[in-house]
């Protein structure tokens, strides 16, 4: 056994790496070119101001389209939401899947680029990324850990989905027992949707539903340019703290 350990140590001393590799310099160059250190919700105010008027106009049109389109949700008691996401009160189909439907896997660094550097600082670096659900959206995924319990029905601890806020891309149907509370996420208005699972639907440009599933506790907000949706098993205080950490 000692012989084996000595051989491994000897091999380790001669592990071959590319002679001219300098990933530290390459990473720093990429960060300088494209990135900010981390962007918490409170840091996106400037972008929101720049695009608020345009986005608001687009949302008015989009909401009109959604309301005019036939949908599966039955009676709509009231309408809430932020740019890019609408919340309605209605009947939730309890037979829907809890499985996450996030699209195709992509490299995390690509997703971070597409998300404009927005992440959830309190959760650390994401473990995976997906694209395509909703359309033009990317999702950063954190695996469940001892400190980050799994979302019911999944082995995932948290999902941050980021997508353009120029039209409604996600609809949410909250039943009577699902709590919907207005919150502040940094400088932005958002909603906490907690308690009983709610129904998530991805919507096509014509307002039609492209898929649906049940979701757990979710924080949504928008900076006017992008909409954000953080789903996890965290409670409201912990979710808000995770989003705002370092901001």
């Amino acid at each position: 056994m000692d012989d084996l350990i000595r051989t491994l140590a000897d091999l380790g001393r001669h592990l071959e790496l590319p002679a001219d590799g300098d990933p530290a310099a390459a990473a720093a160059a990429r960060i300088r070119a494209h990135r900010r250190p981390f962007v918490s919700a409170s840091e996106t105010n400037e972008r929101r101001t720049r695009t608020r008027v345009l986005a608001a106009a687009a949302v008015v049109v989009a909401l009109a389209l959604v309301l005019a389109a036939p949908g599966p949700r039955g009676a709509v008691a009231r309408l809430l939401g932020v740019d890019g996401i609408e919340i309605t009160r209605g009947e939730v189909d309890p037979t829907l899947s809890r499985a996450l439907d996030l699209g195709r896997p992509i490299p995390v660094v690509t997703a971070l680029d597409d998300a404009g550097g927005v992440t959830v600082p309190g959760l650390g670096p994401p473990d995976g990324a997906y694209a395509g659900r909703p359309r033009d959206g990317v999702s950063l995924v954190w695996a469940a850990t001892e400190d980050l319990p799994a979302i019911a029905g999944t082995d995932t601890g948290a999902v941050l989905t980021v997508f353009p806020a120029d039209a409604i891309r996600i609809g949410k149907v909250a039943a009577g027992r699902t709590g919907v509370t207005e919150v502040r996420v940094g400088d932005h208005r958002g909603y906490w949707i907690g308690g009983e699972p709610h129904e998530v639907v991805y919507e096509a440009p014509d307002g039609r539903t492209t898929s649906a599933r049940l979701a757990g506790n979710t924080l949504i907000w928008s900076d006017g340019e992008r909409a954000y949706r953080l789903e996890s098993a965290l409670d409201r205080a912990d979710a808000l703290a995770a989003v705002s950490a370092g901001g």
Partner: protein
Amino acid sequence: MATPSDEHDLVDRARGGDVDAYAALLAAHQGAARRLAAALGGSGDADEVTQDAFIKAWYGLAGFREGGAFRPWLLRIVANEARNRRRAAGRRAGYELRFATDRAAAQPGTAPSPEAAVLLTESRRSVVDALAALPEGLRDVVACRHLLDLDERETAAVLSLPRGTVKSRTSRGLRRMARTLEGEGRG
């Protein structure tokens, strides 16, 4: 080499958005990071894995515990990236480690004959193959402990495992490797 207080200062500055400070931190630890990426994910993608992990770590700096040790935190991100990349590649990509075999085969202070050098190289290749054949949970621990010479505590931190698990997996991994090598006629 940066002192701990220098490093804390660099971390604070990096958390404030100072890319130069972050680059200095990376430069101090990239040797260990590249070797870890190679040991866990194979030599081929080591620098790409390391670079992506460094970028992800930048985005995760706000989650770094103030006053904590930066190196194990960074290496844990590198390890996760290497393992995620390896799993994503699945069966399409094997686990391949490359070594400077000519130097590894040479014994200090001696010049082995060509035949002896070949035998030494083959012997080392058998050890690498036995390591590659381990289940990844055992292989990662053996690689960290004995290929990279990380101690139990740092291995546990890097691989997010309890120290007891590191200890037991190290023993099991080495025993399995020894059995594999015995089956090939190497004691």
